[in-house]
């Protein structure tokens, strides 16, 4: 999956990719204090391209401990569990389901919005591909607006950036590949070489997406994210991240 981290203070978009394998579950947000975790399980394309198997988010899991609520979103269904009660919606529905403080809104074949207490919200986008495409598979995107509602110890591949790290980008220069400008980025005590890149925001245009220029961090975000991306593998869809 592609990650775009928008840093409001520095007004920069920083991008990175995680290349892993189908079935792995990446922790995106883990905030034991507020009792919220968001995890994404990877699926693979139907077959490798140029020897490389692309992976995407196929399932997203939300766990809201205070409400004992679990929400599993796949490219087919939206399963809401509270205690032993389970209700299943499909992407064909246009529905709003209120579990006391949790509101789940499904917009047919487009988005699921999970809102907690009307203040914390996550959007999940469905990318429906042509069924018979030889390589592509349906997959999901997740958008988490900046918020101060997480606790200072919030973490996860995205959660760690809820508290914006300071970055300094300098020494812009043509890259090894003259078509790909580079620069140096100081962040979390590291100085990284970053490449000017273009990613996509699909919220306003689900098909073509909107271009988002960004500084691309290579090697699965090494130096920008805390530790190694493999540190973010979790065993279950509703796990919190075990941090060292």
């Amino acid at each position, binding site marked *: 999956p*592609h990650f*775009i981290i*928008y840093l409001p203070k520095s*007004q*920069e*978009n920083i*991008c990175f*990719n995680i*290349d892993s394998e189908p079935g792995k579950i990446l922790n995106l947000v883990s905030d034991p204090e507020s009792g919220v975790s968001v995890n994404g399980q990877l699926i693979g394309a139907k077959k490798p391209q140029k020897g490389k198997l692309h992976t995407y988010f196929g399932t997203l899991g939300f766990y809201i401990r205070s409400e004992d609520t679990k929400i599993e979103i796949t490219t087919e269904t939206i399963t*809401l569990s*509270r205690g032993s*009660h*389970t*209700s*299943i*919606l*499909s992407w*064909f*529905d*246009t*529905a*709003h*389901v*209120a*579990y006391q403080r949790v*509101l789940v*809104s499904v917009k*047919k074949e487009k*988005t699921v*919005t999970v*809102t907690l207490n*009307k203040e914390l*919200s*996550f*959007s999940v986008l469905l990318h429906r591909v042509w069924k018979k495409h030889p390589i592509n598979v349906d997959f999901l995107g997740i*958008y988490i*607006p*900046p918020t101060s509602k997480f606790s200072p110890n919030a973490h996860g591949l995205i959660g760690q950036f809820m508290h914006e790290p300071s970055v300094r980008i300098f020494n*812009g*220069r*043509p890259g090894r590949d*003259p*078509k*790909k*400008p580079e*620069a140096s980025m100081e962040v979390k005590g590291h100085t990284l070489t970053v*490449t*000017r*890149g*273009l*990613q*996509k*925001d699909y*919220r*306003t245009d689900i098909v073509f997406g*909107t*271009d*988002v*220029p*960004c500084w691309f961090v290579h090697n699965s975000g090494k130096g920008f994210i805390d530790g190694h991306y493999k540190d973010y593998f979790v065993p279950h869809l509703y796990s919190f991240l075990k941090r060292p």
Partner: protein
Amino acid sequence: SLPGESGEEREDVDQVTLYSYKVQSTITSRMANTIIQSKLVNNSPQPQNVVFDVEIPKGAFISNFSMTIDGTTFTSSIKEKTVGRALYSQARAKGKTAGLVRSKALDMENFQTEVNVLPGAKVQFELHYQEVKWRKLGSYEHRLHLKPGRLAKHLEVDVWIIEPQGLRFLHVPDTFEGHFDGVPVVLKGPQKAHVSFKPTVAQQRKCSNCSETAVDGQLVVMYDVNREEKAGELEVFNGYFVHFFAPDNLEPIPKNILFVIDVSGSMWGVKMKQTVEAMKTILDDLRAEDHFSVVDFNHNIRTWRNDLVSATKTQIADAKRYIEKIQPNGGTNINEALLRAIFILNEANNMGLLDPNSVSLIILVSDGDPTVGELKLSKIQKNVKQNIQDNVSLFSLGIGFDVDYDFLKRLSNENRGIAQRIYGNQDTSSQLKKFYNQVSTPLLRNVQFNYPHTSVTDVTQNSFHNYFGGSEIVVAGKFDPDKLKQIQSIITATSANTELVLETLAQMDDLEEFLSKDKHADPDFTEKLWAYLTINQLLAERSLAPTAATKRRITKTILQMSLEHHIVTPLTSMVIENDAGDERMLADSPPQDHSCCAGALYYGEKVPSNGIPSWANAAPTPVVPMRLAGAPVLESTPPPHVMRVEND
């Protein structure tokens, strides 16, 4: 010598030949139109009485009947009852009668015509009726009662099913004890199916050298449709819309259920035995999160437990032992029994013992009228209505024909439930169980259908206390096609522990092409379904009308719609007459318990349409822009552009 004197068996030559017996049934989105046609010839040297006897489902509406006797054609017209009777009395047909009579079979009634036919004469009958298929226990069941009465040179039954939602399954169970194995032919496509049943004369025979027909029973077609959206399927066509709602994949809602069982003397024998057997199965079916108790009554009122108890295995076993020991005797005090059940529920509610998200049901099983305590039915109705709380639904099951079914129906309809007749025979137990299974899995409460657009009008009942798994709620209405290009529906409901808002949209032309491509599809199905629902619901409202003026107003509307839609209802009759108008027959609806929509599980209310509740209008996630503006390119590498990074 006369043939036969020689001792050989003179085969009994049939005096009347059934030349053809044809049944054509078309179901378009649950709206079924059926035509039964029969052609006979009188081969005997004497005039013969010929009977055309057709069993039709209770609640079906007869829309047309025609008859041709020796070239004279009789056609039908729908008249207001008194008008029909006056016309009939002016020109009673000689040797010809027609009529709708109560059938002994479960939820069926008979349309019978008897005519006297001269030697060598030919006669043809043709009857049209329409009905709505109600979803029960997860499927629709279309029953065709075949009773040609004799071997038919041509016996043909064709059922076409056209469901825009797509057929999930279709099945023709064997209902002739294997006699016609392999005869029904089923052709099934994604949205359509054709079932044909055309036994040869030889196949019709009871045995290889019998002259009687084995075709005397019901051909049954069962099916269900696909359901993509929880908000159901909204079908619009010709200025009418129909909304089919049957969500699944929802958590059952815990239920508080009180069984109120009549154990008066008249229940003694088969009825009680069958009721006990059914109750044992029903109790086993209760879920751990359910609460229940049993009230058994005759002239006295007894309870197994004075309050609701949790449906644990131990409690259920104890309740079963209690029920097995019941010895029916004495009178019938329905009033006290119901008030006791209501008291138990109210007490539990007032003490906060009921799960606020639970559903409360009272199921009354009785076989007779009150003979002890309050005897005035209207007073009993009043007592119940005054004491029962709004979150309780009352369902009444009337066993046999001694019970005042209309009373049970009124009692239930005005307390958010329905009544159902149960036949006191070997089948009582399965009928009781089948009914219970229809209400055993409440999935939603307080279901309301809203069609916010102002040009949607004449919506049928759109607010329902419960929705039970395996069934289907149907709502219909009118709209102005000139003002609307699509219809939006917003359903609000409460499920096990969540508030739900389900939306759906239907475009005007969604069905246009689909229906035009099939010659069997009924283009008027939306209008007919709307009329069927509206008239039935009005009939039920009429029996609950609080004042004579209200009753008159409803009667007028029903009559007008019956005449407009050309259907026989309790307020109209069918006059059958020849061209000259000097021979007339009259077909009346039998005095029947015209409960709303025989087979429907719901008796709802009409409430004004609302929009989406505020909580569901929560502002969608703010689309916080990630600096989507083109960031300043660091280096203007001619031409100034930003490159993609690998892996895009």
